[in-house]
């Protein structure tokens, strides 16, 4: 499925505020805002597995876990769980991954909180990045190396 949007990363909670309507359609509409390598994470999705299957049928990459659906127009990168690391572990892992990243590839990670102190270092390395807070206070970090 081709994407016409520009967003690198979106995190949405369908519960705040709760809207009526088909969750698959809502998620698919949000996914249209993504750029080709963008990632959308949606929380509070009823019957997440079914929604993910429906999105895959529409040509999107999608996976589901415990009421959360992750979507991308491109193959979904694996998500590295860094919430169990004390600082500066998450930052170290992200910076290390960035040095090994192929141009155009995406690294996705969940950190314990919004990693403000990481930002100057991402900028210094010329990375493209986007960070979004999740409903539970953790943060989803999208990092890519420009082509």
């Amino acid at each position: 499925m081709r994407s016409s949007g520009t967003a690198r990363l979106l995190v949405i909670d369908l519960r705040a505020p709760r809207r009526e309507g088909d969750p698959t359609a809502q998620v698919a509409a949000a996914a249209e805002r993504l750029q080709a390598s963008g990632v959308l994470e949606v929380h509070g999705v009823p019957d997440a597995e079914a929604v993910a299957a429906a999105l895959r049928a529409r040509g999107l990459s999608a996976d589901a876990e415990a009421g959360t659906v992750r979507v991308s127009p491109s193959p979904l990168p694996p998500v590295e769980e860094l919430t169990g690391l004390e600082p500066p572990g998450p930052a170290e892992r992200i910076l290390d991954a960035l040095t090994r990243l192929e141009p155009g590839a995406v690294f996705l990670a969940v950190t314990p909180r919004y990693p403000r102190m990481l930002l100057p270092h991402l900028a210094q390395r010329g990375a493209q990045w986007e960070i979004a807070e999740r409903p539970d206070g953790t943060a989803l970090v999208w990092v890519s190396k420009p082509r």
Partner: protein
Amino acid sequence: MSTFNMAGLRPDQGPPLFVPLSFFFAATAAIAAAGALAAAFGGANLGSLWSGPTVALVHVGTVGLLMLTMMGALYQLLPVVAGARVPLPRLAHLTLALMAAGTGALVFAQATFDAQAFLVAAALLTAGLCTFWFPAAWALWRAGAATRVASGLRLALMGLLAVALVGLHLSYARGRGGLPNAWVSWRFAHAHLGLLGWVGALISAVSWQVVPMFYLAKEVPQAAQRAITIALGVTLGALLSVYAFGLPQLAVAFAALPGAVAAWLVNPALIARTIWTRKRRRKDSSLLFWWLSLGSAPVCLGLGVATLVTNHPAVPILYGMVALWGWAGALVHGMLTRIVPFLVWFHRCAPRVGLAEVPSMKDLFPDRAVALGFWLHAASLALGVAAAALGADLLWRAFGVALVATAGHLGARLVMTVVRAPRARTA
């Protein structure tokens, strides 16, 4: 649907490394100075709350150690907590110089009752506080961050302004000669504005940020954070009213009560619970400092009540010892052992990650060194408590020596942390 993206944040929000580090090194020097003074003064001079040397020693602790550490920490915390950088970071050099000189003048004035020195101290500290407070307050209020931590920091800055203004008024009054009728009550109001309105508010807000961050513990519930902030705010307002109207010491006690319960009972209990129930229980000797601080907090409350019910001269001395070196001092010491290597790592090591081998935080400040620092601190506190309780000259001098040893160890380790880190280079 709602979104949580936070695009548009400026990457370069923090101060240069030298800004917080310079304050932390100065604060460590203040501990050594306090130790040297205690060892020199001895028990004959430190047995009374009203003696010049006692007041001087207290202010080395409050202005020298606590205020300088907290100023340095706020330069770093405000960008992280509120997304707001304190403008004109190089002004921090001037702030530190003025605060250090002002502290020295104040301590000299209090130790010798030199009227001129009080006025010099008041002028220097006024200038130093202005060069810090106005930029910090501008940054924090302009950011408009709505978190409880940011609210707590705003309250702490108001508390700092309050205790500083009262302190400057006291210094000026002392310099003019003679003691006003409300002097005793004023001093207690000033002390509790500092302990609760400034230090209590700051420690509470900082604990809500750093405990989850460094120890992967759960956050204190938002409702509790709100209640604690309100209680401390009530105390701040009430103490200022007591001061303004020159009300007696008992009024100070009632004014201090909500904040004291919040800062010395409720928040410590909540923080202790989050630390105890954290999932990832790795060995971390900096937690020993937290336990010492959290355990000292309710003792502070008890001793504060005791000052109202007994005239024993040792009680207020014990109160000050436990509050300054047990509760606040232990927390400050413990956090320096985490925050300094953390900052050094981010500034010096992070640019090299993936490109060269970099030391870990534990390499920069090993856990066994943190543990040794804790035991030195605990030993000095034990000596200080014994000295305050018994009044023995030898114990006071031993306390002083132990403080110098604690400061020497901490200072050396902080220097080694910086020396061990590679010079930063861009990728």
